[in-house]
Every structure is written in structure tokens, then in C-alpha cells.
């Protein structure tokens, strides 16, 4: 459930960013980088600082 929550949060942020800056929605690569940052890199960094 925690994993699903992380993906849903990432999705909500991506949708808001996409609506604000539609240019982002054209790039699969930027979407991929965003998801990797949101569900892998960021949680790993936060875990390290805990």
C-alpha cells in the first residue's frame, strides 16, 4: 500500500506539473526521469537522512 501511495502521489504531482507546463507531457524520457526520482532516488535520499 505504501508503494501504491508513492506512485499515486508522484502521479498527482506529475499531472499538476503537466497541466502547468504542458511541454513536459511530450517527453517520455522526462516522464521516466521524474518517476525514477520520485519513487527511487528521493525515498532513498530521505531514508539516508532519517
Amino acid at each position, binding site marked *: 500500500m505504501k*508503494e501504491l501511495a508513492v*506512485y499515486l502521489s*508522484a*502521479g498527482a504531482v*506529475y*499531472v499538476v506539473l*503537466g*497541466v502547468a507546463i*504542458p511541454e513536459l*507531457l*511530450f517527453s*517520455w524520457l522526462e*516522464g*521516466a526521469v521524474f*518517476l*525514477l526520482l520520485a*519513487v*527511487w532516488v528521493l*525515498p532513498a535520499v530521505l531514508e539516508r537522512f532519517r
Partner: protein
Amino acid sequence: MSWVAHDVEPYVIQKHLGKRIAFVPLLIGSYAPDMATKWFVYGAGIFGVELKADNPAQFHRGWPGVGFTHSLTFGVAVALLIYVIWRSKIWALSFMVGQFAHALTDTLDTVGTMLFFPFTTHLFSAGAWAYAGQTGRYTDAGAYFSGLGFVWDGVWLVWGVLSWRVLTRAYFRETIVAADPFWRKAGLYLPEVALLAIYRISFFYGACRWVAWLIWAHVIRSFAFDLSWGGPKWVNAIRSKDLNATGCSCPSCCSASPKLALSLAIAVGARVRSRARREGAST
């Protein structure tokens, strides 16, 4: 063209084919027809120089042009090439299935695809939603998310959500990794959480874009919904008959084709009715 279906179709196909398919080539196949060409349809600026096709629809789907990338023959040819180079049946087959899904989905717009190129340049088109790539990507987005295109994508998204098990960690371990050595090799460099994110990216990207474009088109901007067949009518749609300068001489492309089809339908209907009458009289 489709904006989200190509992202989500591979997950639905994956659900039905399980270990008989490899996800990475399936996804590459699903993107392949537009991978190197779409930027030239919409145009791109490089060092102040604007690069764009003179006739975007002709370039994208026609011949002369790169419309052959949307043919079933292209899928077979690249799959054979993959097999010759890597000797992997599953990679070749998976690419072909993904590419077929893209080529068939794109037959639903008003331009369609040359499914059987080079045997014929006929564009197979159901004409369900307007092809408006020539108007630029923002108008195209507005048109697509106002017509039946976004409904079609929605169908795939719902189907994808109903196939949610393919997105789970257990399915990834038991089926995706087991079917393709790519993931085991990638696992040497990346943790499982990153591999899972890579596997799920296209679903995430497709679902988020579908929501974001709908909000953008109808809340931020005011594009009008038009769910009629071939709509939205407010955009100047390109149709299959507008492409391929030499034209196609097959019966369905000839001007007589609607009359021919109607005559055929009446003849078949009359025959079926007379047969039913005869059978009714004999019993």
C-alpha cells in the same frame, strides 16, 4: 494517431500472453512506428532552424513518406532483423506484436495506416477521430482530447487498470524477469525498486498524460468536446483520400466504392431473405 493507447496496450497484451512475451521489445515495438519520425511531423527548432515536414500527414502516414513504419510488413521485417541479429524468438515476436498493436490502433483515425505496404499503399482507416497532426502539437492535443480518440485511450486505461496484477512486484518477479534475461542483467546495476519503476513507466506516463491533457484541454483551455464519428469537426482533419498523390486504385478507394458496397449489401440481403422464405415455405 493515439496519444495514450500506445503506452498502455503493452501491459494489457502482457497480461494475456504472460511468459510467452518479453516486455521490453513489446514496448519498443509499440513505440517504434513514431519513435524517430514524430518530431518531424510537429516540427522542432535546432540552432534557430525550424525543421518540419512540408506535408506532415503525408510524411507521417503516406508514401512517399515514412508511412511504411505503420505497416504490418515493417513489423515483420524488423522482427526478422532482430531474430537474425540476436537469435531471440521471443524478442522478435514481442517486437512484432507491439508494432502490430500500434499500426492497427492508428487505423482508427481519419488518415489510417498503410497496413499492407509495399503490396498496396491503400490507407486502412475507420475514421473514428480526426487526424490533426498538421495543425501543430497543441491543437492536435486539443482535438484528440475532444474527440473519440481520448475515449479509445480511456478504454485501454480501464482495461489496463483491470489488468492491475501485471503491475505488481510479484508478477514482475515471476513473469517479467523470468521471460527476459534483460531484467536479470539490468538487476546487476540497479536495485529492484528502480527496475520496477522502469517496468511501470509507460503505464504511469500514459495514465498521467491522459488526465493532464484532458484537464489542459477543457479546464485551462476551452476546446469543445465533439464525440461524433470523425470529430471533432472544428478541426481541419486530414483524411486518407488526401494522401498518397498517385491515389489508390483498390475498390474501396474508388469513387464508386460506396455505391458498390451498397449494391453488394442489398444483393446479399435479398439473397438471404429469399433463402429464408424458401426454407419457410418448404417446412
